[in-house]
């Protein structure tokens, strides 16, 4: 008896969904092993995580807060991965977006600027800076054939140092790796700001950024499904030679995609400083840009699914804050990713147990 892996001719519609749910459950089970080894009761830890992430009074709002950068950066990763451009530097692009946003909020526009103008300028700056940071690996890939996996990741480390220079140097306030807080005109509106009108919103910190995420997801969905550009992404991602044969301009599309990918990650950073942190600081992101990769992959590069998966992972982060040590969410994310890739295999292939050929030879 042996195992055989054969390609599936048709994939039932329910299979991808079921396989992902099973992958998630499996990942939690596997994750329990290192948790137990690290001296935690996995079931207590998971219950704590899920309760804090999803079932406490403020869970919905808190989880939305964490989900916002995950969704925006996850969409950025999605568009790049769609054409098999491995932009894994979303974290760096996110930092650059936050940096430019901070420049606008604190230094480049007066605090008296009307709120709408201020937020619009911050949005543009955040997008543009992330886009620029994404464009670099894009241009290097399109024009010189430089591996974008390495270049986008190296630029992330550069972005960390770049950010450090500003928060410890010219923009430092107090010398602890922080800038001064933003003026109120540079704050995203939050639910709690409407607490007087709707008492239930009091203390809820979910902010405008989540709407950015939803709108971006819908726009991307429309682009992917209905536009010429979305069609080009699909063909280039599947078979670059066929795309060239069809007359598509690969290098222009690569650069454009990386610009938008980086821009969306930049918006993630923008919304985080404008909506949550209200200043720039050294480690304002707990690796949103990296988690975004998992979010995108788990959502099977479907922008609407990114919203759902982003929310789930937001809950995981909120819940993960409630348990120690800090590496647990990252570990579980890694295991989830492994389980999801494995599950992918079972949607593309079928496993068969093959009985050996009945031996009739009599010699």
């Amino acid at each position: 008896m042996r195992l055989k892996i054969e390609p599936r001719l048709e994939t039932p519609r329910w299979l991808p969904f079921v396989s992902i749910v099973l992958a998630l459950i499996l990942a939690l089970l596997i994750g329990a092993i290192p948790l137990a080894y690290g001296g935690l009761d996995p079931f207590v830890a998971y219950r704590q995580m899920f309760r804090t992430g999803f079932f406490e009074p403020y869970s919905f709002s808190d989880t939305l807060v964490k989900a916002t950068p995950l969704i925006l950066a996850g969409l950025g990763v999605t568009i790049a991965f769609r054409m098999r451009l491995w932009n894994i530097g979303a974290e760096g692009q996110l930092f650059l977006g936050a940096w430019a946003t901070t420049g606008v909020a604190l230094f480049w526009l007066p605090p008296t600027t009307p709120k709408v103008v201020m937020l619009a300028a911050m949005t543009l700056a955040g997008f543009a800076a992330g886009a620029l940071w994404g464009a670099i690996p894009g241009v290097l890939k399109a024009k010189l054939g430089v591996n974008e996996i390495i270049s986008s990741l190296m630029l992330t480390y550069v972005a960390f140092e770049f950010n450090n220079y500003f928060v410890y140097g010219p923009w430092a306030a107090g010398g602890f790796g922080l800038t001064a807080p933003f003026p109120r005109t540079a704050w995203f509106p939050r639910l709690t700001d409407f607490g007087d009108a709707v008492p239930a919103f009091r203390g809820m910190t979910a902010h405008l950024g989540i709407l950015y995420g939803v709108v971006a997801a819908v726009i991307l969905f429309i682009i992917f499904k209905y536009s010429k550009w979305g069609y080009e992404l699909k063909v280039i991602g599947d078979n670059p030679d066929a795309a060239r044969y069809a007359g598509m301009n690969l290098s222009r599309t690569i650069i454009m995609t990386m610009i938008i990918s980086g821009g969306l990650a930049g918006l993630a950073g923008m919304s985080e400083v404008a909506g949550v942190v209200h200043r720039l600081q050294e480690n304002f992101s707990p690796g949103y840009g990296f988690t975004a990769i998992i979010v995108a992959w788990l959502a099977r590069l479907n922008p609407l699914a990114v919203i759902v998966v982003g929310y789930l992972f937001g809950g995981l982060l909120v819940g993960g804050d409630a348990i120690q040590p800090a590496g647990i969410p990252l570990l579980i994310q890694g295991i989830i990713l492994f389980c999801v890739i494995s599950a992918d295999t079972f949607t593309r292939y079928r496993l068969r147990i093959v009985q050996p050929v009945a031996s009739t030879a009599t010699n």
Partner: protein
Amino acid sequence: MELVFLINIIEAGLRTGTPLLFATLGELITERAGVLNLGVEGMMLVGALAGFAVASSTGNPWIGVLVAMLAGGAISLLHAFVSITLRGDQVVSGLALTFVGTGLTSVLGAPYVQIRDVPRLSVVPLPFLENIPLIGSSILYPLFGEQNIIFFIGLLLVPAVWFWIERTRPGLQLRAIGEKPAAADAVGVNVGALRYFYVFVGGVFAGLAGASLSLAVTPLWIDEMTAGQGWIAVGLVIFAGWNPWRALMGAYIFGALRRMPLDLQAVAWLPFASNPILGVWLNMIPYLFTILALIFSSREAIRKRLGAPAALGIPYVRGERGA
């Protein structure tokens, strides 16, 4: 004065470049077999923690190194299973390995963060170098006289790896499964098993790289202490054009670059280097140089028409074309 400075930089390159050399050689071997493993960073961290933990509990750094190598190899099998048996996406699987390695070491490494007196791998003193006329005391001894034993292991591994790949029959099979697995399969070479083996070897090398960090170069354990070196190693493989000798050169250059910010602080005529705020710009150097190296090597690859192993990153399925 300038000579001393230069010697210092080169010496630092040899010392800090050695872990990078191990990681690069490991990834090079794995890629020559046709498997792309982006999990080097994670495997190094696993090696670094395993080595550190075992060395501090047994008191013997060599047992630590051994366990680190096995741990690196063991965790690499996750990637082997997903990418070879399940034919999953190798890029994403490698990323997942890095996540797992980083998260796992952070969870399991917490008790070791405080330990400062881990038994270290020893330095091999070569006092006779000082007696060599002319260049002995000024160049040879400062460069090689007090290197850690890992430096010499690295120096020996490069020709060994080269010999294995280019001059032996297992090496011939290694190259064949990376270039055209179908051809190897057709004459009875077990492509899947060999790819498992070489992914494991890559993991063992990455584990060694991690242990040489935590037991020799910076003998302590901190979260994410590799600081992107695993990724630089992946870039160096491309820079090296999949050639072990060029990997040696690349690793030492990058070792020197990583140390540069510290070394430059000692230079009197570069006052800004000792300014910690301006110093962060210097911290960018290794990352920017990795990108520059990739630009350089991709242009060279176009000119010389060199390239990656033809089957790199492609799962081998018997009977499918193009494999």
